């Protein structure tokens, strides 16, 4: 499977179809991998794929300082496919500029889990394959359980929980920087006329920052978990995103990243949207 992956990358580079292939490379220990940027066909042997490839590589597609002119190749798990779908849906990225090399792992994070190349070539085909692959697979039994635990608490208990978690937040913005959907050139947290979100890493600002980021990702977050993995303070911020994603699914029947041709849920509406909570 890895040989086929490398061969596809090699062909893309040799044929001049792309100027760069972004994929995963081997880290220091067997369980670590990191993003690699291959510009020459002879370097494709640096590419690997295994259950420990967890960074979301789509984050580099909106980086003007590293994207070349022309197209790039992207080793794309379902997470990357869906992220690209959202970027295209939001008109942030021209789908002609990326050649997706679809890959998937049966159980991310589990040593020895099977990995395969996906069959799809176009974004549409890969979106369908991603949807199929993720159907029936519990995206995170762990996440669902932790959500349930929190939902069983009173609002006061939850506030105390998040206050405790966010007390460790150092406002490094690793969560934002690791997220392909956080591409705003001027983030709300950088605004100071007025200062919407206090910049000090104290409970109030930390609370506002994490809550607002989760809200800005409504209908856009695909649940890759890169934010929570990037957090150096082990804050379970993916739970906020998971909760919002679940509400979006229940209220609007929508899940992000499976169809780049439909309008985003928070930029559209139905005249008969539910409103039982409105007096």
């Amino acid at each position, binding site marked *: 499977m890895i040989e086929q992956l490398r061969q596809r990358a090699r062909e893309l580079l040799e044929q001049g179809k792309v100027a760069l292939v972004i994929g995963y490379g081997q*880290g*220091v*220990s067997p369980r*670590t*991998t*990191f*993003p*690699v*940027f291959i510009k020459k066909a002879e370097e494709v042997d640096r590419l690997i794929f295994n259950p420990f490839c967890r*960074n979301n590589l789509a*984050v*580099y597609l909106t*980086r003007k*300082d*590293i994207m070349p002119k022309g197209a790039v190749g992207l080793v794309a798990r379902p997470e990357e496919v869906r992220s690209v779908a959202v970027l295209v849906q939001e008109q942030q990225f021209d789908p002609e500029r990326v050649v997706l090399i679809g890959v998937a792992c049966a159980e991310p994070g589990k040593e020895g889990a099977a990995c395969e190349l996906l069959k799809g070539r176009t974004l549409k085909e890969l979106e369908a394959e991603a949807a199929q692959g993720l159907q029936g697979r519990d995206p995170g039994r762990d996440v669902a359980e932790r959500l349930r635990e929190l939902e069983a608490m009173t609002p006061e208990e939850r506030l105390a929980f998040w206050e405790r*978690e966010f007390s*460790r937040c*150092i*406002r*490094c*913005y*690793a969560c*934002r*920087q*690791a997220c392909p959907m956080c591409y705003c050139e001027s983030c709300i947290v*950088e605004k100071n006329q007025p*200062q919407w979100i*206090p*910049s*000090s*890493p*104290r409970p109030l600002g930390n609370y506002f920052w994490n809550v607002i980021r989760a809200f800005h990702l409504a209908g856009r977050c695909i649940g890759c978990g*890169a934010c929570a*993995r*990037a957090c*150096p*303070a*082990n*804050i379970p911020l993916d739970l906020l995103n998971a909760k919002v994603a679940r509400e979006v699914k229940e209220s609007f029947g929508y899940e992000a990243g499976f169809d780049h041709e439909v309008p985003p849920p928070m930029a559209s509406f139905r005249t008969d949207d539910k409103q039982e909570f409105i007096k």
Partner: protein
Amino acid sequence: MARLLAKEKLGALIRGAMDKKYRVVGPAREHGIVLFGELSDPAALCLDELNTQNSVKEFFFPKTEPILKYALGKHDVALADDFAAPRTVLIGGRACDARSLVALDRLFGWDYKDKFYFARREATCVITLACDRFDEACFCTSLGFGPRAPEGSDVLLVPVEGDAYLVEVVTDKGGALVAELADIFTEGTPGAEKVAYPEKKFELAAIKPWLERNFEHPFWNEEFLACLGCGTCTYQCPACYCFDIVDEGDIHGGQRCKNWDSCQLALFTRHTSGHNPRPTQASRWRQRLSHKFAYYPGKFGYEACVGCGRCIRNCPVGLSILDKLVLIGREAAAAPAEPAGAQP
């Protein structure tokens, strides 16, 4: 004969310090990671991990700190500046952490003596544990010191055979604390030292000259593509000290705060006009490496890096400053007469 501390007596040492009304700070497991924090109980001390996720910096230069508070009255503004550093014993840091304090002393005591930082320094007794193991991210030995270096510590505990530590008093402050808690220590012949030294990975002396001569080298644009531009490395680093001053308050009052800031964030050098003299992550990394290994040592005689490896272990994309230093070392060895400002 030497002063020894049985390993099982570490808890008693902490209890002794707590009884004498010291705040005790040490590594403790919290939410799945080991962090330096105020210990509520000697049993909370956790030495399972090689080193903590955060550095001791937090206790001398906190992530956020009010430097003055103000209250608006009818006709005046009342300023309050009520800062006091609690007496603290900092236990369980490593030689790298201790050395970072010596490096930071230079900056915070340079043209203006930062009273907050130095009040905390004076009020804190640093008890360092020499390392008996290391991992691939450690590189203290490449920076001219090592896991048993006493600089920055008040007391150094060196692990020896026989489940004990050899107790070395480094400063008067350390000596005073040891005297205060005398009955926890014993006299004896120390067993063999169990200190583990990582092998040297690069030639430090070659780094600064290479950095000074290769501002435009293609290395910068090629090696840092994966960098996400977050502040994780700078905030976990014991030797990074940049800060931002903000006023937070309303019409009644508020406070002026000193908060950690990071040169890796794009906003760091963005001008009001929108122009950014460091517009790419490559330029920000060039700044980071050059600052730590050329500008800072040029000015203060100390690298602003202690080889603790936290930036490497915490980096979400596995970027390793050590790898880059090794690369530079090789480049420097291969082409020692690199002309200044070489064009890519």
